[in-house]
């Protein structure tokens, strides 16, 4: 028999960063390469100031998504939540920042409404930038499991260990965090049920701030204390097994990058570099002026 979902169950809501194993080419790619490319993609998406380079990055990300063999619908679902807001944000940017100073030319003016080519570009770019980052992160989370992610970050940071950077310790911390989330969800469920059985009502209908907080405290304080107790058990267990940290430890999973992995890295870097080159060459305005001229001729 299916158990009914109750208001106390929190594990169901935890859907951030879904891993969908399909065994595709993207899944088999060395996770270290995926981490490097993901970081480069997010950075370049923030730096770029050109529409054409945004389109290059977008095409690359969509190509990568099609390689994962995960339905594109799933990646687009997260975009749908913010679509309206992004459009509003872009419109605000287009109309409120005319940016007349840096030699921008006026495209449209009626009353106080002004659109210059610069403001139009920055508005549209804002949408593209977010779409690229969101799709890029979904591509990453669809194809990389958390264990792979943590192992690859530890491997990548290993050279820094020589100068005293705690790569292994950071990776272990992240791993403990991820492993503890389901335990905490279970504890929270138990605590909520325990308090509800004493008459607490967590479903709030009124906007009574003080009352809401007074109801949250008997839940939050025990949650913190219980997890600190769990932490102490774990500390004792690790210390009694003489855990000494990263030096000289070997790991169960060893990562090997083959020729295909390096080729993918090279192609990915080439795409990102070309996007950055286009961005610095500033050919957007001439392209936009050309399109705008043709539209005005048509009407």
């Amino acid at each position, binding site marked *: 028999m299916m158990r009914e979902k109750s208001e106390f169950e929190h594990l169901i809501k*935890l859907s951030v960063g879904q891993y969908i194993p399909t065994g595709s080419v993207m899944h088999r790619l060395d996770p270290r390469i995926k981490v490097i490319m993901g970081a480069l993609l997010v950075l370049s998406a923030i730096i770029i100031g050109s529409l054409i380079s945004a389109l290059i990055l977008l095409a690359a990300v969509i190509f990568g998504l099609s390689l994962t063999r995960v339905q594109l619908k799933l990646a687009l679902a997260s975009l749908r*939540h913010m679509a309206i807001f992004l459009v509003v944000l872009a419109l605000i940017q287009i109309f409120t920042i005319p940016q007349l100073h840096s030699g921008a030319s006026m495209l449209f003016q009626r009353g106080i409404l002004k659109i210059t080519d610069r403001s139009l570009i920055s508005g549209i770019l804002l949408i593209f930038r977010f779409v690229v980052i969101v799709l890029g992160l979904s591509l990453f989370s669809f194809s990389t499991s958390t264990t792979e992610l943590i192992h690859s970050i530890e491997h990548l940071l290993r050279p820094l260990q020589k100068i005293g950077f705690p790569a292994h310790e950071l990776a272990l911390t992240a791993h*403990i965090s991820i492993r503890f989330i389901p335990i905490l969800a279970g504890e*929270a469920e138990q605590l909520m049920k325990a308090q509800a059985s004493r008459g607490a009502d967590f479903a709030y209908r009124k906007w009574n*701030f003080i009352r809401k907080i007074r109801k949250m405290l008997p839940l939050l304080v025990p949650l913190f204390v219980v997890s600190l107790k769990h*932490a102490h058990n774990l500390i004792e267990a690790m210390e009694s097994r003489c855990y000494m940290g990263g030096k000289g430890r070997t790991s169960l999973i060893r990562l090997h990058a083959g020729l295909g992995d390096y080729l993918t890295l090279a192609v990915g870097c080439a795409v990102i570099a070309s996007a950055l080159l286009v961005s610095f060459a500033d050919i957007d305005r001439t392209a936009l002026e050309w399109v705008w001229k043709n539209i005005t001729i048509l009407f």
Partner: protein
Amino acid sequence: MKSKVRKIVISGVMGAISIFLGASHLGFIPWFAGAALTIMHVPVIIGAVLEGPIVGIVIGLIFGVFSLLQGAIAPTGPADVWFVNPLVSILPRLAIGPCAWLVYRAVRGFKEVPGVAAAGIAGSLTNTVLVLGVLGLYKYLPWQLIGTIAVVNGGPEAALSAIITTAVITAWKGIQTRRQGSRV
């Protein structure tokens, strides 16, 4: 002696609480005009007070990375979209722990409990001021609106974080206060 294992485990567990509070929406308390008060930064402050500034930075990093991922993959509201930028989501959160710890160290000399409460307020205000400051520098929001948000949202958040931090740390360290036990 405070061992390395202890620091690693406390950072991991407090980071997990921060993620859990965000993902389950227990860490958001509805406030005026659709805005929500958040207590996701409280684990950072508690970690910093218990184990020092480095643990605070690490928990802040976990909190920041999670809010970036949440903004990108599962946005819950329009404001989440801004947090896709790591300068908004990660950089300000690294400062919460060290600030809370410094204030705790400074006030602890007089008395323990006010020190913890002051750390709660300081950590929360660091979060509010730095996040809104970066949003202002990026021109996502006009400065006047930022001032209003800082007062309307930041004030209650600081009070709330002081209450929870004090309650948790006094309960954990077994400090005697006038009121014992909890009331529902």
